């Protein structure tokens, strides 16, 4: 087969189970994976852990996707969209796992499109509006460093599906953190204006750092990453008293509901639609 014909071949008729590039109706991302929950694993806790991690990823992916057509350069747009796509992939796997573990059999769409803001368990840092590019890269650095440290631990989780999702995610998050860190240094160590914007972004992010807890203690690892980047960027991480409340308890800022309205609008208006 010559390369000229390969794409034509791909565009030819397909079985009903292939909708790549054609719209909704993607099949279960855990298709054909052993879905039993091992003995000794609390299925409810497993489902809750998967939903929280999936919500962080879905909401982050949505904020990153907002940069498409608006990023400062085409390369950055492609980068932010790719990072969002990785996170969306992680969310899909985790929602599917949650639906199996909690016994409801809900699919990924049920979690993503048909829950309200109070049912979401993402940390509030993920839902804050994107605003400045400096804020986007600072937040991405914090969230990818934190998620990476958490996923490293989860690779040893007794649930093999969650452990496998984490092992895959570790590789992706390493790239996300590197991308964000390099931009933070470039902007912090750049012009007066970019430095000022980085300082503003750190001030916006700092009050939400106290919310970044996990079942494992990863604070030192995250603090090391942030210290290394801020030092190289000529910045200091401000110390703020943590804001009361917790996204993990379903307490959100006023910014989550509008984000979900946009994310969920089409699916809710046409709940049975496929295209």
């Amino acid at each position, binding site marked *: 087969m010559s390369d000229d014909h390969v794409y034509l071949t791909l565009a030819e008729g397909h079985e009903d189970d292939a909708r*790549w590039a054609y719209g909704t109706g993607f*099949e279960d991302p855990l298709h054909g994976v052993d879905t039993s929950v091992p003995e000794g694993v609390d299925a409810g806790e497993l489902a809750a852990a998967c939903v929280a991690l999936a919500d962080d990823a879905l909401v982050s992916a949505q904020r990153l996707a907002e940069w498409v057509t608006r990023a400062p350069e085409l390369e*950055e747009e492609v980068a932010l969209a790719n990072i969002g796509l990785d996170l969306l992939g992680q969310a899909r796997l985790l929602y599917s796992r949650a639906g199996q573990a909690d016994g409801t059999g809900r699919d990924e769409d049920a979690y993503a499109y048909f829950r309200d803001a109070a049912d979401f368990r993402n940390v509030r840092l993920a839902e804050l509006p994107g605003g400045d590019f400096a804020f986007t890269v600072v937040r991405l650095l914090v969230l990818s460093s934190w998620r990476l440290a958490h996923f490293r631990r989860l690779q040893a989780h007794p649930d093999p599906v969650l*452990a496998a999702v984490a*092992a895959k995610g570790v590789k992706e998050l390493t790239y996300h953190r590197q991308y964000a860190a390099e931009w933070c240094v470039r902007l912090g160590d750049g012009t007066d204006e970019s430095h000022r914007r980085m300082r503003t972004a750190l001030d916006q992010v700092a009050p939400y750092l106290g919310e970044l807890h996990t079942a494992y203690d990863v604070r030192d690892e995250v603090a090391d990453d942030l210290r290394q980047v801020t030092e190289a960027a000529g910045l200091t991480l401000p110390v703020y008293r943590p804001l009361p409340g917790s996204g993990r308890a379903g307490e959100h800022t006023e910014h989550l509901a509008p984000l979900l309205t946009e994310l969920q609008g089409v699916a809710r208006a046409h709940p049975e639609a496929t295209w």
Partner: protein
Amino acid sequence: MVTGTPALLDARRARQVAEQVPDPELPMLTLADLGVLRDVEVGADGTVVASLTPTYSGCPAMAEMRADVAARLREAGYQRVEIRTVLDPPWTSDWITEAGRLKLAEHGIAPPGPAPRGGPVPLVLSPTRPAVPCPRCGSADTEETSRFAATSCKALWRCRACREPFEYVKEI
């Protein structure tokens, strides 16, 4: 001379069929070249079970790969086909075969170097990454223009010697 039991021969033939399916996003590679086809078995009842692993969690081509493998196996006469997703161990660019690396380079895409192994990858802020040789002219005088490209698995580079931009499959 061909040796082996009929069941083994059947499994070998099924594997050959599945191995030839092209990747939807890097169509110069087969799924075997890319290392995403993990296993092909034929059960006692004749069901072919092919196992695939995604390159990246968000790879949108997985459903397409599953459908392509199933369609090719059915065309080859296997009535019962089952496609399984394998998440563990996670895909690594080290699984791209030697033949696959040559095909990438022939098509102007720089193949990946060895993937990082063993334990956490530290955050490194100094430019320590070795230059990727240009797949067209071979020059080492190249630079990264973007860590991300048209697909998750690639980055954008350019060659300062021949001035051509090129894609590069990232180590992961």
